[in-house]
């Protein structure tokens, strides 16, 4: 994986010094909270309901065991012994003191990590396919391109005060595992006539107005990648709405101008910027690529001993096909029955780090589904790995099952939330484990957001739940039919909302409809797409 050189390290060190100074000025009262807010936000520091929250960037979700150990140490030293992995492949700590923030950033900088631009109206951490470099279906590893974009977007002088936050995802396969088209810019690395290039999708997003990004350029040559991205951003910075923060994301601009007019303006700006010579030399991409070269894979057994049914179930559910047939990618579920989705204790993080070192070439990945994956595990090592995971409560075999719930922090932490997400996720996961239905349902992606900002990706859930405030009472709207995969679609609301107990029953009801109506091999989403909303509505409301 990527390693900093002296320049990257100097940038991160400079940021630590700068933030220490800013925090000091705030503590001394030289900065008002209003003046400090945008500065701390660009360092990932939020003021939540009970304390500061620090969000640490994990570029394209990739980290090594040393870094994971430090994340665990931070949880122990500065928080309450745990951390929370997020839907943008980052980690956040919910109980941070402002006085400690500088020290935490310094600890992170020592292992080439930071919290730069993990919030604020700027270009956020670049996300990518969690199976990058391991997936059998990718054209190339997308991470060198993500790394180039990371450097370009770090402290970009023109784009630190955009109309709103800006999220970029990079993938390199037709199967979209990063919800690429639900990003402000989604980039798919593609091959055309033997040449690699970038296909740009702009203007996707979730939030209160979910939109699927249209393709605005199907092939940007690699020696113009940064210039094209810069053109996309400049047009947005110029015209993005600033009068209403709910209409300020680029999706609204692209929607209001129309994809064609937005594209025309980008192309005009692009032509101008090409003359400015802002593109990094192609040698830079060539310098980055070897950091992501394949590790030394070895041939070995290609099957497992399935005599232990629990192990066999975990293999079936939690491992993903690898490009080398003696390996798989193994997903560590952070969704134990009744647990808090995405939470891991310091001990669990230390263990995951150790296992990454022992069994996955010292590498692990954070998934946008709030799980962790060991990308390159020898099939021969799977049983030993699983045994160790089981012993630590990390062996839940529920990847993409109803218990593998994505949920935002909700009203338990977040000052924006209207309703709690975590207790609801816990209760649903308990219900479906206890009644045995999870095993019958197969792939079913359930996602919960505690407010309309949609951090829990409810629009993209096969079943989505949105918490709203109804006259001071928490209320939950149910939606069906969303997907973030290559068949990207947005869920539709079933009808009037439910209270907490009611929405759990409602999830039970819609899954009953599915079980009664499904045809051979159909997933919940397939049945919904075939029979439509009516049978579900009828069961829920009549």
């Amino acid at each position, binding site marked *: 994986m990527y390693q900093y*050189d002296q320049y990257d390290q100097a*940038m991160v060190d*400079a940021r630590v*010094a700068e933030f220490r100074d*800013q925090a000091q000025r705030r503590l001394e009262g030289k900065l008002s909270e209003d003046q400090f807010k945008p500065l701390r936000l660009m360092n990932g520091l939020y003021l939540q309901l009970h304390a500061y929250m620090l969000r640490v960037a994990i570029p394209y979700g990739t980290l090594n065991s040393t870094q994971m150990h430090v994340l665990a140490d931070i949880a122990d030293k500065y928080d309450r012994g745990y951390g929370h992995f997020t839907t943008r492949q980052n980690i956040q700590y919910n109980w941070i003191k402002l006085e400690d923030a500088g020290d935490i950033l310094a600890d992170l900088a020592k292992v080439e990590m930071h919290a730069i631009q993990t919030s604020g109206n700027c270009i956020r951490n670049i996300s990518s396919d969690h199976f990058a470099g391991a997936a059998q279906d990718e054209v190339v590893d997308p991470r060198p391109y993500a790394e180039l974009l990371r450097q*370009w977007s770090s402290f970009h*002088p023109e784009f*630190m*005060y*955009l109309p709103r936050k800006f999220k970029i995802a990079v993938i390199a396969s037709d199967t979209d595992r990063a919800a690429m088209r639900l990003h402000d810019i989604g980039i798919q690395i593609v091959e055309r006539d033997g040449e690699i290039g970038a296909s740009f999708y702009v203007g996707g997003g979730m939030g209160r107005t979910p939109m699927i990004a249209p393709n605005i350029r199907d092939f940007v040559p690699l020696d113009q990648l940064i210039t094209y991205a810069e053109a996309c951003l400049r047009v947005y910075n110029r015209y993005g709405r600033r009068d209403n923060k709910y209409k300020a994301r680029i999706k609204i601009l692209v929607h209001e101008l129309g994809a064609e007019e937005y594209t025309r303006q980008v192309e005009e700006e692009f032509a101008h910027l090409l003359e400015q010579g802002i593109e990094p030399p192609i040698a830079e991409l060539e310098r980055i690529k070897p950091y992501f070269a394949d590790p030394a894979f070895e041939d070995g057994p290609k099957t497992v001993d399935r005599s232990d049914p629990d192990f066999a179930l975990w293999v079936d559910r939690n491992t993903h096909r690898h490009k080398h047939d003696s390996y798989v990618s193994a997903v560590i579920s952070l969704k134990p029955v009744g647990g808090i989705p995405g939470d891991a204790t310091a001990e669990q993080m230390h263990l995951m780090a150790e296992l990454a070192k022992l069994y996955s070439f010292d590498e692990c990945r954070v998934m946008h589904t709030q799980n962790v994956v060991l990308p390159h595990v020898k099939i021969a090592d799977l049983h030993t790995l699983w045994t160790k995971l089981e012993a630590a409560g990390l062996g839940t075999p529920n990847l993409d099952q109803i218990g593998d719930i994505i949920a935002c922090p909700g009203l338990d932490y977040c000052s924006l939330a209207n309703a709690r997400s975590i207790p609801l996720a816990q209760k649903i996961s308990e219900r479906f484990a206890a009644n045995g239905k999870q095993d019958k349902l197969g792939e079913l992606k359930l996602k919960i957001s505690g407010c309309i900002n949609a951090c829990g990706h409810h629009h993209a859930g096969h079943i989505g739940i949105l918490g709203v405030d109804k006259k001071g009472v928490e209320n939950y709207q149910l939606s069906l039919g969303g997907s973030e995969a290559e068949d990207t679609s947005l869920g539709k609301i079933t009808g009037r909302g439910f209270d907490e107990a009611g929405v759990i029953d409602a999830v039970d009801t819609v899954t009953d409809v599915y079980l009664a109506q499904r045809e051979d091999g159909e997933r919940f989403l397939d049945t919904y797409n075939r029979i439509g909303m009516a049978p579900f509505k009828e069961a829920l409301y009549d």
Partner: protein
Amino acid sequence: MTDPQTDLGSSPDGVQFRFRDDETVDHASVTVDSFLEQSNSSAVRIEPGDDARELLPLLDRIALVEVNFPVFGDGRGYSAARILREAGYTGEIRAVGDVLVDQLNNMRRCGFDAFQPDTPMNEADAQAALETWPEVYQATTDGRTPIWDLRHGAGRNE
């Protein structure tokens, strides 16, 4: 020796920092609309909603562009300044309004060379801010060689 990147400039009234040696324009600036309607002024003031590109055909008449920041969080002025510099404008670009020390460095990178903040900055803080970043990733028109070029031995601006 003075370092034009980081040494705080001397300044006329109201302008706290100025990084140029030429005479300052001694008359008030006019709006972009007035300027385009055949004003004699050589100073123009850009508001966040103005399109700096409208000035490009007339750059040889301009000695001062003030870019107003009514609120620091509105970043349109950064693009405006860069666009002017990219078109070869060499006159003064002055940031006016809610301009804080923490934006100073980015503004310098985008082509601003004078600063007239509503609330004067602490000079030591400003000096420190300008010296924060030893190197930079991106290429702009500010003459700094980006890290990408340092790595590959190609001094873009040399």
